[in-house]
């Protein structure tokens, strides 16, 4: 292979580094998008025959969101291999122990169960907050858009914005506000 062809090969298969902000995101829906980038399925060169996967840096994993009381009924199972070694950990407990674990497991579970799985997981870097080591943040080339907007609380709006919002109805006179 000539020098120019070799460079062309390197250029096409350059590893990209993507950033994903997990704040207020569903970890299981996010895992699908993250895995798409880990596999390289977002590139037209993807064909299953070449390793074209990218790195993904996930930040704010401690601020992920789950629906309803899913924190209480989603249970993670582990077995040490010894008799009586089974443990069941609720999602909120696991998240308290390690805030990166839920999104890691969601991605691990969603990937194909073959020899590529561990290598792809090595390219996933999860951080519980937005403090990223310098040697990682300097690699980042682009950002994955979030799946849904981060909701705003009422106190985040300015007084002017609140007053500008149209008033749809008036409370009846006998209605008592606390």
């Amino acid at each position: 292979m000539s020098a120019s062809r070799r460079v062309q090969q390197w250029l096409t298969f350059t590893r990209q580094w993507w950033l994903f902000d997990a704040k207020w995101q569903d970890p299981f829906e996010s895992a699908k998008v993250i895995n798409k980038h880990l596999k390289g399925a977002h590139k037209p060169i993807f064909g299953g025959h070449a390793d074209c996967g990218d790195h993904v840096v996930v930040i704010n994993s401690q601020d992920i969101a789950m629906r309803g009381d899913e924190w209480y009924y989603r249970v993670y199972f582990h077995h040490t291999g010894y008799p009586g070694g089974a443990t069941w950990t609720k999602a909120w407990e696991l998240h308290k122990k390690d805030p990166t674990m839920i999104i890691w497991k969601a991605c691990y579970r969603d990937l194909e169960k073959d020899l590529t799985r561990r290598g792809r997981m090595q390219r996933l870097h999860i951080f519980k907050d937005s403090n990223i080591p310098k040697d990682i943040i300097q690699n980042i080339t682009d950002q994955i858009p979030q799946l849904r907007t981060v909701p705003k609380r009422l106190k985040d709006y300015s007084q002017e914005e609140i007053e500008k919002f149209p008033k749809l109805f008036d409370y009846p006179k006998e209605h008592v506000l606390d």
Partner: protein
Amino acid sequence: MVNLTRVMLWRRPSVRPRTVDPFWKKRQIFKLSSHFYGRARNCWSIAIRRVQRALMYVAAGRKIRKQHMQDVWDQRIRSGCQELGYLPEGEKTMLEGLARSNVLLNRQTLGNLAVLEPRTFEALNKIARVRANEEKIARYLGPFPKGILGKL
């Protein structure tokens, strides 16, 4: 050791003897099992079963290969579309939009164009985007391409 290679490769005479020699019938099967591991290579009762199973896999693979290739092309078109952002729904809108614009390219060609000729693919993508806008093909559409007046 007796070297039988010459004997085995000996070309059979064009006029066959009328007798049915099972050796030659088995040799047809052993030719197919020559690359198997273990006794499935040389023992008849194992080899015939393994060869029959292998031929069944081959027959199934003919269908699977076609489906796999279509999946790969669809995937390439989809990722090309989503990267450009005009057609977030991917290959479905693109193929429909191009077909309605009388651009008769198949999945294989478009998938190859996405990799090999990205500028052509982008132009085709814009055509499909404009057509999708006119005929309401897709539910979600990306931004309207710049430099296009909006009519085909």
